[in-house]
């Protein structure tokens, strides 16, 4: 008798093939982008003739050049750093607030709890674009008059604004994770004299690591790939706005843009590759009891 449920191996290859086939356009798209970044021509027609190997595009990208000849040089490292600051900022704030809020919504009874949960859900229904006029108005009202603070404030504001869009769903997600943890874990801590905040930090958080990672990752991606909020509020450029502003079909050197696009993808791919085991636990939910 088998001690775990297993699928019959017969026909497994059909499932694998179907999944592969369904993912093919995506894989192909990314593969062509990466190959083109190492070519003098865009490899978009699946013709090997188009592939003329070079690392010139990558050299140009790291030199912040927008074209093969001359032009203005951008500080690509600074642009990458800006992107990282926004992404990590959003990720940090979303993770902190959603773990705290998720815990309280899961474990504590207080007035307006249900209403708050409903409102959070409603807030999530609003797309960021729909809120941008109001968010812009608030930006103008709170904008510092002192020019030397403006750059810093624009980072602070874009991180907060972007995080605010992610928080509702993340709170719900974290609440779900806290709900799966048996009360006994918490009680034992409280009986031993620990405060609620200590229980949250030392007992609960380690048990929901996959959830924290998932929320942190989603927050990071939201900040990394955001275009509209970053373009509207941030004074400096991020990789997303840099690439968008330099895609001009007629005269952009597209393989160079492909290299910039690949650079833009790298952290996301690395994040997924290194954290996929933990994420899978996150998706399946639950803990060992």
């Amino acid at each position, binding site marked *: 008798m088998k001690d775990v449920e297993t699928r019959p191996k017969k026909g497994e290859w059909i499932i694998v093939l179907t999944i592969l086939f369904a993912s093919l356009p995506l894989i192909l798209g990314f593969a062509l982008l990466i190959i083109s970044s190492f070519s003098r021509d865009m490899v978009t027609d699946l013709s090997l003739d188009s592939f003329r190997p070079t690392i010139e595009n990558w050299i140009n990208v790291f030199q912040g050049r927008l074209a093969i*000849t001359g032009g203005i040089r951008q500080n690509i490292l600074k642009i990458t750093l800006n992107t990282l600051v926004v992404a990590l900022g959003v990720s940090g704030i979303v993770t902190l607030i959603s773990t705290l809020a998720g815990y309280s919504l899961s474990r504590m009874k207080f007035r307006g709890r249900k209403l708050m949960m409903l409102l959070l859900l409603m807030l999530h229904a609003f797309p960021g674009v729909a809120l941008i006029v109001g968010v812009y108005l608030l930006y103008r009202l709170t904008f510092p008059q002192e020019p030397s603070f403006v750059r810093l404030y624009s980072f602070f504001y874009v991180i907060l604004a972007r995080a605010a869009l992610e928080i509702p769903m993340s709170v719900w997600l974290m609440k779900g994770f806290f709900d799966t943890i048996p009360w006994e874990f918490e009680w034992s801590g409280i009986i031993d004299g620990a405060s609620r905040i200590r229980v949250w930090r030392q007992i609960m958080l380690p048990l929901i690591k996959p959830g924290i990672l998932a929320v942190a990752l989603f927050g990071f991606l939201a900040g990394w790939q955001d275009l509209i909020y970053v373009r509207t509020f941030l004074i400096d450029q991020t990789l997303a706005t840099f690439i968008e502003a330099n895609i001009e079909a007629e005269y952009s*050197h597209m393989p160079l843009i492909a290299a910039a696009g690949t650079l833009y993808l790298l952290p996301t791919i690395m994040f997924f590759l290194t954290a996929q085991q933990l994420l899978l636990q996150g998706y399946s939910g639950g803990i060992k009891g």
Partner: protein
Amino acid sequence: MKGKVGVLLAMVVLFGVIASGCIGSQETSETKTTSAELTGDFVKDVLAIGKALESNGVNEVKFSAWGSGDPNSVMRVYGIVEAARRINKVWEENGVNVKITITDTHYVASFQDAYQEYLSKQPLGQAGDFFVNSYAFLPTLADEGYILDITEYANAYKNVIDDFYSSLIEASKFKGKLYGLPQDTEARPLYIRKDVAAKIGFNLEGIEEKVKNGEFTWGDVSYWAKKAKESGVEWGLIHRKGSAHPDLIQFIFAFGGKLYDEDSGKLVVDVPAIYKWLYVEWKFVQDGLLPKDIMSWDWAKQIHPAIVEGRTLFDIGGTWYWTEWQTKEYYGKEGTPRPLKPEEVQAWFAYTLFPAGEKGLKPVTLSQPFIWMINSKAGQQNPKYDELEDLYHKLAFLMVIKASDPDINAIHSVISAHLPVRKEAAKLISDEKWLNDLKNLNLDLDPQVKTNIKDIVATTVHPINAKFLADVSYMLEYTKLAPAHPKYPALADIFKEAVDKVLRGEMTPEEGVNYIIQKVNADPELAQNVEIVGEIPKDWKFP
């Protein structure tokens, strides 16, 4: 005693009067230093502003320059850097302890994107102090108060303003007021492959004059395109694609139509001219002279290679093609793609105006001038802005005047294959010695500017290219501008859709015109801004 008191009182009163007079005169002197009158004498004005700034304790003025466009057009921001250096030099030589620093040279490829960024950052005081972009955006920016009205400043510099081509100065105006100075412009010639023409017996001698006189029309283009096709050439005509590039609307003007009614301030759908345009394009496709899917061709892999490899007789392009073909690897006939040499471009291509649609009409070309605009908050990042606003604004204007120096404008024209906006710059382009100095970068330029244009200069500065620019400059006399109307981009998109459908054979030219009318009427805001005039001609024939 009384007398002594009287004397004392009189002295106190006298002291009071003198003191108040002194204080008063001090106030007057301070008022004087917060503004300066522009006289039209550049050095004098720069010195007056510099001294006024210095007397207010300002020793550094920070400005930023925002530009956009193709990679060879970087003088759009470096022109400002160079202007700052030249003004700094004047101050330094005259002992004025003030310096202009350009804190940011922001340059992106997409000019629409740059415009959107300016729109969102200007109200926050975070947009560039100098903004160079298409004239098409000027009315909206002026209407919103986002750019400076320089009419009064320009009055003092009439000698400089008069040197600009007048049509370009008109394009820099909104409601009669001047909101910027032209930076560059271009023409959109009809290129003709000389080798293909020779092969089919098409004599190109005097073709420019024939086009100018309206003797060579689109009927002739069609005739020779068919001949080329019969001789085995792949296509008769290749043209540009997309709605952002207004090349194809030249057909409307070439068939005597119009796109904008100045009296009503509305856009115009000129039905007869649009029908003729669509019909010509449709006929070219039906005869196999023009690819039916040209509107989705790839620029780098299909459009340019087809032209430079001689797979078409005619091409509707832009003046900047001339150097673009020399810098990009489009020519792949010999195996590995490579750029063309200047001698090859000259040997292979003839160029004329966009021919008249029919006999009796006039040829045209189309320009989309770029304008140097000044942020209405220019200088905001500097000390005592509220107090010294007038000085900062006038200094910004003088920088644009300096950035329009003939040599700066000529450098930009030569390296980017745009047309000069000043007559003095046009003269400079024909000066062989100056061209040689530019080729060797033996010019008095900011080191930062030299470093950043070095590669472009090496690949583009050539007597052949300068001759080309000089040759096509006359086209500005025939130029038309796309309407600088906020709803024009929406109408241009509809045109593009209709052309694409007609070319692909999904619609007849007549259906194409009706499609345009329906789409205009379906958008209430657009319908309010567009007049539909005329009817589809019944007995019109195209050879």
